[in-house]
């Protein structure tokens, strides 16, 4: 019998499984009918960091071939958490796959009590316009003593523990360039 290497592996694999099942010596039928294939068996694995707090636990994200997220769980090789997670980290999956997730920017007009969905482009333009207006109106070059300060106290920025190092660097760059001095972190409020 001529076998290719691939065929040989396939054949020996199934024979091994059958032998293992026989060795157990009891009826596996009901159990087999219950057992399902591990859903993450063929999934693509990539690592990520939990965005919730500053501990920075590592996670493995399992993806389907289509790119759809299948599961998330702790990364045993990560030095911070070694596979463990708290309740928030363990629930990370539903941050992505969640019907309640907001998918577009929402806008509430002054004195209105309703949120309306708007386009990203409109939202960004609206924000940029207001930042420019407020910044120009409140920018001070010199303080009362005549010292050069080049700052605005009309805008504040609140960051979050979910920001990574690189994002923080970019935000600091932009906010300092605008002249902001109130640059805070959500966890200190």
């Amino acid at each position, binding site marked *: 019998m001529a076998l290719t290497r691939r065929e040989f592996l396939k054949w020996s694999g199934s024979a091994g499984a059958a032998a293992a099942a026989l060795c157990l010596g009891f009826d596996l039928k*009901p*159990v087999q009918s219950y057992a399902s294939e591990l859903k993450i068996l063929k999934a693509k694995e990539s690592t990520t960091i939990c965005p919730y707090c500053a501990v920075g636990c590592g996670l493995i994200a399992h993806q389907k071939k289509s790119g759809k997220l299948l599961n998330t*769980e702790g990364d045993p090789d990560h030095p911070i958490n070694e596979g*463990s997670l708290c309740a928030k980290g363990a*629930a990370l999956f539903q941050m992505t796959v969640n019907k309640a997730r907001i998918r577009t920017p929402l806008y509430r007009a002054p004195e209105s009590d309703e949120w309306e969905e708007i386009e990203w482009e409109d939202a960004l333009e609206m924000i940029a316009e207001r930042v420019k207006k407020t910044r120009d109106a409140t920018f001070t070059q010199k303080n009362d003593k005549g010292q050069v300060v080049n700052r605005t106290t009309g805008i504040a920025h609140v960051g979050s523990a979910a920001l990574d190092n690189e994002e923080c660097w970019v935000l600091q760059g932009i906010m300092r360039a605008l002249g902001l001095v109130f640059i805070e972190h959500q966890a200190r409020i």
Partner: protein
Amino acid sequence: MAGKYFFVDTTRCTACRGCQIACKNWNKQRASKTTQYGSYQNPSDLDGNTFRLVRFMEHPSKQNSMVWYFFTEACRHCLKPACQKKADQIKKGAIVVNDFGAVLFTKETKELEKAFKAIKQACPWSIPTWNKKDRQIVKCHMCHDRVAAGLPTSCSKACPTGALNFGEEAAIKKLANERLAAAKKKFGGKGEILDLDDVRVLYLIIDEQSKYRPVAI
């Protein structure tokens, strides 16, 4: 029969509920609608969407103003499951025990709706619950799909403090004895391991059993 065992060191549990949510995450269970009833424990009991629950128990204490015990509860995977015995009277094979000792409720428990109450009462800890959506009896299945593939259970993998452990019988019993000795040293001779010879989930506690869950047997 050797097999897989859990060991829960309640003295190490901080009630972060990582295990509870990791369980829900693996089984992709929805949140249960609950109401505030005066405890941090949520939901108030195991249900069709919750196979593992961290119980919060408060008691007045002589030494301290109060003690607060945490108890992560799920199916104990008994060596001789009473639920299986009960179910076998009606439909053989609806509840099965697999090769590493996990007690599994198959899809055939769909046909046991009328017997559900009897099966729940047969369990010393009333663990089995009725899932309204799938219309079958459900409970912890020891992540049989993960364990068969060589992975740890979802809950024990998530535990950050080493309170919830999972592994081979010999290793887990060794760990349990070590932790028992450590607990006795730390808590003035108090400490016991529950149901050592009957179940696959070993709990180390340092106070009366009834202080850890509402109806302890």
